[in-house]
């Protein structure tokens, strides 16, 4: 990625999403709280999901992290609301797999496409992935219970 491409991406998408993240507030009363933590850089978010009848009714998040991880978690919160647990897991699996660059990606969603593009930006895949991995892992364990 050239510096120009990086600047355009940040200016148009990442900075706005990270400066005004979706549902960025603590929601301690949520019935499912998931921690997304990247031990290498110290980024840490709490994801607050209200689940009922197998559906994510609302998703909030709060914590500390870089613009990319914040934008990614913000997009995640917006995407998972209203989805069934298995749909969230399927979306998470597909999205995480797409970040390897091996599995092709065919989302029609603009935001996910941009996040996916960022994988070409060396060293930052973990920033994109951390919250997605945390939620997918947690919900899979719920399913297996």
């Amino acid at each position, binding site marked *: 990625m050239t*510096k120009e491409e*990086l*600047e355009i991406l*940040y*200016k148009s998408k990442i*900075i706005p999403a990270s400066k005004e993240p979706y549902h960025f507030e603590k929601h301690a009363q949520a019935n499912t709280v998931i921690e997304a933590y990247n031990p*290498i*850089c*110290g*980024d*840490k978010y709490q994801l607050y999901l209200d689940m009922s009848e197998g559906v994510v009714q609302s998703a909030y998040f709060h914590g*500390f*992290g*870089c*613009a*990319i*991880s*914040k934008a990614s978690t913000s997009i995640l919160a917006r995407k998972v609301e209203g989805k069934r647990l298995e749909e969230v897991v399927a979306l998470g699996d597909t999205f995480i797999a797409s970040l390897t660059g091996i599995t092709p990606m065919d989302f029609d969603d603009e935001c996910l496409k941009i996040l996916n593009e960022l994988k070409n*930006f*060396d*060293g*930052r895949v973990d*920033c994109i992935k951390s919250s997605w991995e945390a939620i997918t892992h947690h919900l899979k364990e719920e399913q297996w219970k």
Partner: protein
Amino acid sequence: MIEAVTRFDSFENANIHRGLYDLSSTATKRYEQIRTKVAHFLGTENSNTVAFTKGTTESINIVAQSYLSKKIMPGDNVITTIMEHHANFIPWQVLTQTHHAELRIVPIDPHGNLDMNKLRALIDSKTKLVAINHISNTLGTVNPIEDIIAMAHKKNIPVLIDAAQSISHCALSLDQMEYDFLAFSGHKMFAPFGVGILQVAEKHLGEVLPYNVGGGMIREVTNERTTFRDFPFNLEAGTANISGVIGLGAAIDYIGSLDKTDVSNHIRDLTDYCVATLNTVPEINVVGSPSGRSGIVSFTVTDIHPHDVASFLNQDQIAVRAGTHCTQPLLASLGLGATIRASFSIYNTRDDIDQLKASLIALIKFWS
């Protein structure tokens, strides 16, 4: 260094302490000569105080497992500091927890200096070891090692120095110091990755026992029992990182060819210049202001996460580390999630720091 390693790998490659053919005996001789070279570099004639390891982390773990775990009792304590690298923190945390002992952590003052009064108060008759870094890899603080050694030795307590960050600053006179254990890594002194040193004071040589067993470290093996060689050979089980040691020898020759005072002045000058330069930008917050700082400056940029800063600096060919620097307890105590860290070596110049500042200013403008 690269030439020495390449020559060895290409033309002189053989295992040590094994064959009687020329290549092997030459390799053994070179390897042992480098042990002596390291000993001289550290100010001693006794090469048997020097063990080759994988690096600082392994050296410290050896002291925890092969020395201290044999001595520590419930109710004893180990003293370390809040500014340690995880390599000099976790081994003591795990060891004290398994032995029902106490880990005592010396705090820092608001400037990032070690709180010496607190250290004095924490040392008591149950203290089994003081483990401390020479230079903090996050704050750059140069700790008053000689005072700490004197304080601990007055009570007969051994001291381990993590010299990972200071070993290339030869002017810091490590060779004059009376520490009990010294740990450092080759890759911080222009040697290859994956080789390092544990040096042990003569009086403890018999107390560091094997931690890995196998070929090369034994005296005699029968069906019933095995007797082991003495330190340092009792630690070097299996085939060693011989090319790494060859590289370490060349790196020590190189460092030895430099003028100690020049190196030290250059690094200090860059460090001070970096702090002064970054302090001219209101959005940049330098972490700490210790009375002695060398080679390392950590900072944050208001409203921009360290990772984003590092990614933009990378686009301008500036390599910094961003994150928690393997010092999570320290960052937690400072209330910081992460920092950006600029570190300097002999090849850096003031111009590099001017470029760093220019890139940061451009980024701050871009972000606003």
